[in-house]
């Protein structure tokens, strides 16, 4: 319990850092907004996102620009863009969060163990990381999906299998520096176990870094999912913003349906830039070398 409380205090300080910056606060608000939309999706979506809609006169409402009846317009197949946007927020946030969190846990542990133990374990883990660095990210997702099928779980799996690599390298470098420090040497002299040193002494000191890379990983996951979905390798049962743009692209309506293009694009850009602004604000403040001299 004490460890959890300490972690909570640490997190509190870090969030305080983000709030010092205007861009960081704006980013936090945007992320919170999408999170709320994602959670409330079933309650706030006005229509079934897959339903072919008809207007008041009973005609099939295909390709309608935004109006009072369809606030964000409709698609080629007469589906409500607003409802699709809301459900897509849920898919995108879910994939981003899950892949971001799993990948940071893997990356942090690989980095901590490689850095702390050094020697052969370090060599093996880092060579493996090098191999993963040789994998082209988006093509890997495409091949995996082409082989195993268009499902959300495989999208997450493909993303996680690649993006842990960056955090692993960065965490390892930090761990290498920290393990020579007095407090770690002292803990070892006191006879602390390796696990205790790694998780109680070293890890709290790289917490800012871990948070920074969690934000990066979530942003990268969202971009990757959007890219894969746009190329037609998303889960057809879970609509996402990238998937909406894929449907627009293959429908060939791109010259006319500006609304169908604009809303998902704006959503992706605002969510990803919000995450980038949070991490940038955090980096600027947490890294004293970049502070105003």
């Amino acid at each position: 319990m004490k460890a959890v409380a300490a972690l909570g205090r640490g997190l509190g300080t870090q969030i305080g850092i983000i709030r010092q910056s205007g861009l960081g606060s704006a980013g936090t608000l945007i992320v919170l907004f999408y999170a709320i939309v994602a959670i409330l999706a079933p309650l706030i979506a006005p229509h079934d996102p897959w339903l072919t809609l008809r207007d008041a006169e009973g005609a099939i409402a295909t390709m309608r620009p935004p109006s009072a009846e369809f606030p964000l317009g409709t698609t080629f197949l007469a589906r409500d863009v607003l409802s699709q946007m809301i459900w897509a927020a849920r898919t995108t946030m879910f994939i981003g969060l899950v892949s971001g969190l799993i990948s940071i846990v893997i990356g942090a542990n690989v980095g901590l163990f490689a850095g702390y133990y050094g020697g052969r374990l370090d060599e093996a883990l880092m060579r493996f990381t090098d191999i993963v660095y040789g994998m082209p990210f988006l093509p890997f997702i495409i091949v995996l999906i082409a082989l195993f099928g268009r499902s959300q779980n495989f999208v997450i799996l493909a993303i996680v299998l690649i993006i842990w690599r960056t955090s692993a390298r960065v965490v390892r470098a930090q761990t290498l520096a920290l393990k020579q420090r007095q407090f770690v040497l002292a803990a070892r002299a006191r006879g602390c176990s390796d696990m205790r040193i790694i998780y109680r002494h070293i890890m709290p000191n790289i917490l800012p870094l871990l948070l920074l890379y969690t934000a990066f990983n979530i942003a990268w996951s969202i971009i990757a999912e959007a890219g894969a979905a746009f190329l037609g390798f998303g889960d057809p049962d879970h609509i996402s913003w990238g998937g909406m743009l894929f449907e627009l692209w293959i429908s060939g309506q791109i010259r006319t349906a500006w609304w169908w293009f604009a809303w998902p694009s704006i959503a992706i850009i605002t969510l990803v830039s919000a995450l980038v602004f949070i991490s940038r604000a955090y980096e600027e403040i947490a890294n004293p070398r970049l502070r105003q001299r």
Partner: protein
Amino acid sequence: MKEYIVRRLIYSAFTIFAIATILFVMFRMMPGDPTAQVISPALDEVAQRRMREAFGLDEPLIVQYFLYLKNLVTLEWGRSFTSSEKVYDILVYRFWNTMLLMAAGLFFTFAIGISLGMVMGWRRGGKLDIGATIGALIMQSAPPFITGILLLITLSYRLDLFPTGGMHSPGNRQESLIALIFTGDFLHHIVLPTLTVTAYYLATPMLIMRDSMLEVLGSDYVEFARAKGLPPHKVMIRHAARNALLAVVTIASILLGFAIGGQVIVETVFSWPGMGLAMVEAASRHDYPVAQASFLILAVIVIVMNLIADISYCWLDPRIKLGD
């Protein structure tokens, strides 16, 4: 130095081999008939049996694996399911198309990023610094298909300034790629894809250069150069920027690795006949031989790029210990 390069080369070769192995395992784990990934289901029974023997698909897995490696090295990548052309013949010219677009995109990304970053760091907090930071971060947050489609809608469909895709107009057929490059028509076609790549990747080298300039500007040798009374632009370029460049080179390897993903998207949006488009089309049509080979080539491009970045980094900074 020599020893370092040799070791890097060996590591890179090993990485390629490892990725080829992972790919083999992935393709064998695919649900369904394991032969369906090398032999087109459209072939008749006799042809299927002949293919089965050629690829050793009746042999034990380990034999198949060595045959697979041998076929990779000897460029026997099988035939496309959709066109029954040899995979190698399909991909060889696609490869150069991809390299051409990547080179153009990355050249402008680094040239513009480094120069802007240099001035931004030098005039920290100025209008350019703040404006370019926000602008670049937003452009980076827009996946390349959004930027690409936006450029298509505005500059191509609405204003009709640029063609909507491809590498050349239907009328402009040239003997070779080299001859094509020097036609105005080709340059006209490459503008939008290059612009898309540059917009997407600009933020990374630019912001790294800016931050690195800030660090360098606080150092003694820059102070000293100033104290000597050198004109400011000389201090900025010769003393500060030169050293700040190092950080950009470090990040280059990571950026180049990512650039492949953007490449796949840009090629799809602008129907650029490169490896990325080949791979997307093959994967969606379940044309496994083409998908597999193009994935491997993309991986090799990433690995070679990383190798070049590593070597140039150690060449630029003689201080780093080559033993590491």
